[in-house]
């Protein structure tokens, strides 16, 4: 049983302001993704960064296959951090799949959250009839194959459950300083959960004010997806960015910061 969420999720808290701003990284990397954005908010907010279990410097031993087979399991990481830090009126900034994870967290426990800021969100990645998510199943299967053949920050030679077995010796737990771990077992399952998820039905379950930051020319969250979200998320604002690609908070941090600040100042 994990003693503290702060350790389990490698939580970092800093900033001079009173209102909490919680940044959730998406699929692929860890809290370091936000390093170009957080300085702009440090003076006015209390910044909370963390790594989902299985990513970054989180405690890999806490990885629970059953729990993290569902985005709800990831949402619980966020809720447990909010609970432990006793947060209120949180502005939750989520990148990519963490926009949906944030949405699920806000549906389950609305009392923690004030606003949702979604960077490159998508409620469903696979094309479905008239819905254009951007990908076919075979594309995702190809991605899983690619993940299997990449060993960035590879920590486990074998699956965690075998690794952690008391009878077997620990097989070198040193992990390279790597921001984008692709631990073949955990990262692959995160990829599966993310890209096969379908949260379209959840969009109507909350009225929390939200900002959708839609990149131009993002193959992972294409324009139609941003428009779909805007249509189905009540109380949402859609901003199309000049930034291209999927990580505007890394490729165009100034534009990202500006749009977030603009949104926060308007929606008092």
């Amino acid at each position, binding site marked *: 049983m994990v003693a503290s969420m702060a350790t389990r999720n490698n939580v970092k808290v800093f900033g001079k302001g009173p209102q909490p701003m919680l940044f959730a990284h998406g699929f692929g990397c860890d809290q370091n993704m936000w390093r170009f954005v957080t300085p702009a908010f440090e003076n006015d907010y209390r910044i909370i960064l963390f790594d989902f279990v299985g990513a970054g410097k989180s405690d890999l031993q806490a990885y*629970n296959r059953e729990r993290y*087979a569902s985005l709800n399991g990831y949402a619980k990481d966020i809720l447990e951090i909010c609970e432990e830090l006793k947060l209120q009126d949180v502005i939750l900034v989520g990148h990519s799949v963490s926009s949906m994870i944030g949405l699920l967290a806000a549906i389950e426990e609305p009392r923690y959250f004030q606003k949702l800021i979604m960077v490159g969100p998508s409620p469903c990645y696979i094309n479905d009839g008239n819905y254009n998510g951007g*990908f076919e199943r075979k594309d995702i299967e190809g991605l899983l194959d*690619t993940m299997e*053949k990449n060993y960035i920050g590879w920590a486990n030679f074998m699956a965690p459950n075998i690794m952690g077995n008391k009878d077997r010796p620990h097989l070198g737990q040193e992990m390279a300083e790597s921001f*984008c771990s692709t631990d073949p077992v955990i990262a692959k399952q995160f990829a599966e959960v993310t890209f096969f998820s379908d949260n379209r039905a959840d969009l109507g379950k909350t009225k929390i004010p939200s900002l959708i930051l839609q990149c131009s020319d993002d193959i992972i969250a294409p324009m139609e997806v941003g428009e779909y979200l805007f249509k189905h998320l009540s109380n949402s604002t859609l901003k199309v960015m000049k930034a291209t*690609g999927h*990580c505007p908070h890394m490729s165009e941090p100034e534009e990202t910061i500006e749009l977030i600040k603009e949104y926060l100042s308007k929606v008092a």
Partner: protein
Amino acid sequence: MGKLFEHAPCIYFSASDDGTLLEVNNFLCASLGYDAAELTGKNMDTILTTPSRIFRQTHFFPLLKLQGFTEEIYLTMLKSNEEPLPVLINAVRKQVDDMPVCLYTGIVVHNRKKFEEELISAKKSAEAALYENVALAEIKAELQRHIEVLDKQIHQAEKQNHELRQFNHVVGHHLQEPVRKLTLFNSLLQQQNKDADSTPLINKIAAVTGQMREVLSDLQKYLWLQETLPNKKMIELDKLIDGAAEKLSSEFPGVELHIEKDHMPPVEGDEEQLQLLFYHLLSNAVRFRKDPVRVIVTISVTALKLNQFRYIAEKYKYTDFLRLCVKDEGIGFDGAFNNRAFEIFRRLHNESGRGVGLTLCKKIVDNHLGNIKIESEQGKGAMVTVELPLNVVAKNAVI
């Protein structure tokens, strides 16, 4: 590009941060079947398969930006004839004339890929076998632990059931009988009474014995909820709520009860018990109303997934639940009592009510393996949140 790079027997190209190809060497062009002119100025995505495009956006680019370099990245490029080309890439991000530029080198790994695939496949089989062994051993140990715990719990439950049955008997017989006789004898006294001074006293006795009867009746309901196994079937909640509202309207004829509710999907449960649940929730809203004539209750509904396991740590199964929020605008109560409101006979006001309604509600929700909580503020009404599993899976099997 220097002649060496131009003709080197490896992939070499450079691109800007957003992926626009700047320079490409011969080997790359030849491997992909393009001319240099066809590639320069185009986005890198053009020469990557869709999965690799995703990988580039989610891993490759952030790594380059954060770390400045990457090593041994496996990607699949896309040839001009749409065939895949497996490559292993190293990359570095440098400032060239004040602009960030990424330099990529790599090799084609057809053979390596084949070998690697066999390795991975073998590793997976070995792992699977090992996992089964290890997992099996763990499961056996866990099962043993659980059987021991379960046995103790069954013993505990049986003991409690037995005690409860005895308690039930006490309440049913040894308490109820004297109350019954008290009522009857007091009535006789009333009949025979000729003394005007005695009348108010006799009436007080009648009132108090009436209260005792009601307390006993509530206790019996509680014990009945404890003992009977719920009779499960799919239920239309709308009808149930309307039924409870009607009953209340006839009990409180001067009061207008308005219920604003979302559409309710069907839920699996015991009809009688769920009706009692709504009756008590609405009854509280009416009893503790602010406006003497008009009561407005809002019932909002959300379908969501919650963890089915409530007591065993580290076990997760996200299943469908229905969350109902029943809100009224009545007099409310001090929020400090939120957690204690479900205790039997706990009264939170001096107003009417014996304090058993919420206790029964909790019992009913517990019987359905759900959750219930209440939040209130003095003067601002109360909100009860009930979470019920949409399908009550084979439960009550043991006790």
